């Protein structure tokens, strides 16, 4: 029953977002074109250097392309569902967060899912198609681990967005925080193994970008040990728990200013 209520809420807000997008077709077309250009430019770059370089830290260019596609897959899914956090700052500044807090739906759910970004769907479709075409034969065990780690990726992505929202409540700063995360996550367009150990450690243990984007791709190639898989699951659960704790702490500091 509770799940049905959440589904209806999400469908309704998504429908409203979709209507606003089709009401302004030119803007939507320009946004989609920009997103596709960014994607194809990077893909084109990787393919262009294929003849010029052999390996990057043990990975060949075909493998780098797969890592890049999987990065896009999770990045797009994250933006598709959690775009709402980009609008959250105005809610805090205006005090409109009050309206979300008093509704019988989890405020976090309302904040994160309020603007389903349909403009990411064309690129998502293209990414999935290219991924299916370019993906080498993968053992079913690896597909299974990839599926499991994909869920874990989504859990960590959710936790990151909760952290950003909570930081927003405390500092009223959201835009830069989420863009810093986006800039950092851009480093995972290639496997994080190519970076120095200290950078790799930072991208795994501090800002877990490697766990979100690189680990599922590595699972496809069977490059993860069982210990690392269990460690990732454990880390994700703790990270998610801490993000919720931080969110509830942040709400205690919310002053409802301007409302």
């Amino acid at each position: 029953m509770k799940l049905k209520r959440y589904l209806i809420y999400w469908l309704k807000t998504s429908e409203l977002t979709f209507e606003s997008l089709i009401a302004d077709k030119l803007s939507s077309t320009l946004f989609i074109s920009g997103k596709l250009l960014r994607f194809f430019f990077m893909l084109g770059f990787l393919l262009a250097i294929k003849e010029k370089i052999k390996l990057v830290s043990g990975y060949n260019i075909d493998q780098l392309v797969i890592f890049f596609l999987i990065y896009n897959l999770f990045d797009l899914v994250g933006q598709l569902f959690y775009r709402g956090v980009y609008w959250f700052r105005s809610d805090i500044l205006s005090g409109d967060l009050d309206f979300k807090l008093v509704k019988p739906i989890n405020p976090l759910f309302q904040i994160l899912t309020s603007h389903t970004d349909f403009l990411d769907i064309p690129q998502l479709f293209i990414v999935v198609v290219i991924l299916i075409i370019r993906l080498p034969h993968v053992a079913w065990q690896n597909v299974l681990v990839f599926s499991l780690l994909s869920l874990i990726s989504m859990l960590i992505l959710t936790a990151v967005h909760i952290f950003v929202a909570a930081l927003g409540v405390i500092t009223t700063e959201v835009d830069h925080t989420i863009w810093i995360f986006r800039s950092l996550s851009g480093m995972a367009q290639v496997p994080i193994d190519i970076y120095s150990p200290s950078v790799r450690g930072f991208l795994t243990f501090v800002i877990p970008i490697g766990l979100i984007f690189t680990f599922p791709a590595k699972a496809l190639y069977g490059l993860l040990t069982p210990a690392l898989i269990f460690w990732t699951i454990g880390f994700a659960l703790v990270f998610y728990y801490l993000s919720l704790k931080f969110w509830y702490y942040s709400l205690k500091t919310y002053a409802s200013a301007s409302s």
Partner: protein
Amino acid sequence: MKKYWLIFRLSWQNALTYRLNFVMWRVRSIIGFLASYLFWLAIVNSNQNIAGYNPSLLLTYIFVSAFLRNLVLSNVSYGACVEIAGGDLSNYLIKPLGYFKYWLTRDLADKALNLSFFSVEIIIFYLILKPQIVLTQHLWLFLAISFLAALLYFFLSFLISTYAFWHPEHNGWPFRFLFIMLLDFLSGSSIPLDIFPPQIVKIFQVLPFSYLVFYPNQIWLNRVNTNQIINIFLITSFWLIAFYLIFRLVWRRGLKNYSAYGR
């Protein structure tokens, strides 16, 4: 002149009032630089020569690109787009102030502020990363072409802002978003453009974007001869004049179309 100096000072005060905002912006800028540097470092560690670039040339390219990003591509004049879309342009049209000069001053102030912070950051990163930097033999030519490139970008960016005269939806942001995506790649700010096949490089040569970062960078790296340097200056000047004239034409037409939406 005095009023523009005042605008310059106010722009600095404004930026430094919202310190957290400014610090976060610098953090984003640093992350962008580091991401690009570390990516190319990993590539040159495995490959000693990529399309004629040895490791020191390639890493210098990234350092110089970071400088050019701060000098050429940093700008606040996209705010004009918001003012046109929201009808706030009216406030300026009735003041004894050149709107174009106003944003040029604010842009200069922003570039000066960003460059002063960037100078400190880059020295710190140079000391930490210790890359082998290639020194230029054409410092004055590099500074001159960078200045022209900054001016070219200003005209280009202002031209993009005029889109809001006809489409004020989303503060004119959709067209600018497309422009930024094009610019990010075609300017060569994170990827040296001559890594691509020669046929594609020829396309880059005729577009104005490559004269913002890639060609100034080539002058720093001593990868162009005297004739090529003259060509770069001539083409950059051509684009500068062309965009200035186009901008004037579009601005006049835009003002005729302007109806102060949102006021």
